């Protein structure tokens, strides 16, 4: 099951050139771009691992593509995303986020039903991937 989080996730995988253009858009808007990775694709997992510092003072997006490729060398089997943080007052939040790398096979999520008091059923989802311990997911 293809993970669809953030922008462009229904499109074919972005090429390096696509990534560069998108990141350049963010940089030109004055947002700090950074690269993050994770092996836990749960949609509520907002805090991914940071790959280096956010790039506050790089005027050109080639640096972002360079870091994405560096990250791929080490974490090529995991999810990698590029996010753009807007520090301007009133926003102070992520303005862009898109996945730039995904594992070869994505097992998807299962529904977990928990029976509560009475006949209440609570639903939650769990990625099949996280049944394996950290570091062993996605081979």
């Amino acid at each position, binding site marked *: 099951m293809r993970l669809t989080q953030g922008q462009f996730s229904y499109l074919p995988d972005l090429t390096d050139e696509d990534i560069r253009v998108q990141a350049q858009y963010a940089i030109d808007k004055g947002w700090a771009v950074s690269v993050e990775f994770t092996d836990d694709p749960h949609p509520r997992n907002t805090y991914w691992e940071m790959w*280096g510092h956010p*790039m506050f*003072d*790089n*005027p*050109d*997006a*080639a*640096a972002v593509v*360079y*870091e994405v490729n560096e990250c791929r060398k080490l974490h090529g089997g995991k999810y990698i995303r590029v996010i753009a943080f807007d520090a301007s007052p009133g926003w102070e939040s992520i303005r862009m986020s898109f996945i730039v790398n995904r594992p070869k096979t994505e097992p998807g999520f299962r529904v977990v039903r928990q029976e509560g008091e009475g006949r209440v059923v609570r639903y939650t989802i769990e990625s099949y991937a996280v049944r394996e311990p950290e570091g062993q997911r996605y081979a």
Partner: protein
Amino acid sequence: MTEDAPTRPATVDLAAAYAESGVREVLEELDREMIGLGPVKQRIRETAALLLVDKARRELGLASETPTLHMSFTGNPGTGKTTVALKMAELLRKLGYVRKGHLVTVTRDDLVGQYIGHTAPKTKEVLKKAMGGVLFIDEAYYLYRPENERDYGQEAIEILLQVMENNRDDLVVILAGYADRMDRFFESNPGFRSRIAHHIEFPDYSDPELLKIADIMLGQQNYTFDPAARAAMEEYIALRRGQPHFANARSIRNALDRARLRQANRLFSEAKGPLTAADLSTLTEADLRTSRVFRGGLDVDRVRRAQAAE
């Protein structure tokens, strides 16, 4: 998927490309703002022509490789290397070889770390900042210190070489420094020599050129020499050249800064009535003649202070 789809133009109008790219403005600016430096201007004009032709060739499909643009600027201090690098960045941006055209100026301190594992991230950080523009490494030979085999400079050199080769589209590296020491640096690091296509030498300025530079520097700050002061400046330049730590245009700038200081002092202590704009902006002979240079230069115990001031 569009390998052979785009139709290529059959002809290329170089003159139109030249006018369109805005290269002419940069070259004219260079001619106007930089005094002397004949060979440097010539080389830059040649490089611009080469890059323009190369661009045209790529449009016709005759070449596809990005040419190597890394350069080395050699010359004595104060000969305009940094200023020319700024112009070069602008030129490369107008020709479309770098995207942003900003200049990042660094020295050894910005690239080399202090402990194991510190150098690589530091160098990469700088390289990332320079991407899309020009990285100007001043006094590049300090990167290589053969006397200390555990020096981290070597690590910075390796990363630099790697990025210079693999990210040729993303940034242009300019190494700068004194001619003789740069030569030795290239000898011990053959990797650099082969990756640098353009070696540009900056000659020293002649005395009349330095005087012209002094005039321009003063003009930019709305100051002028009176005729006697101009003669004193001429003499000053000739004397200063023979003394230690002579740094071409930079020495001139420092001399003018000190002359302005003396002028301010003089106005403050002598002026009795209201001053005119002309009074405030004219440097007189006295402001220059008080310089140590006219008294045989820097005394031995003053050398250290002068170095600190430079």
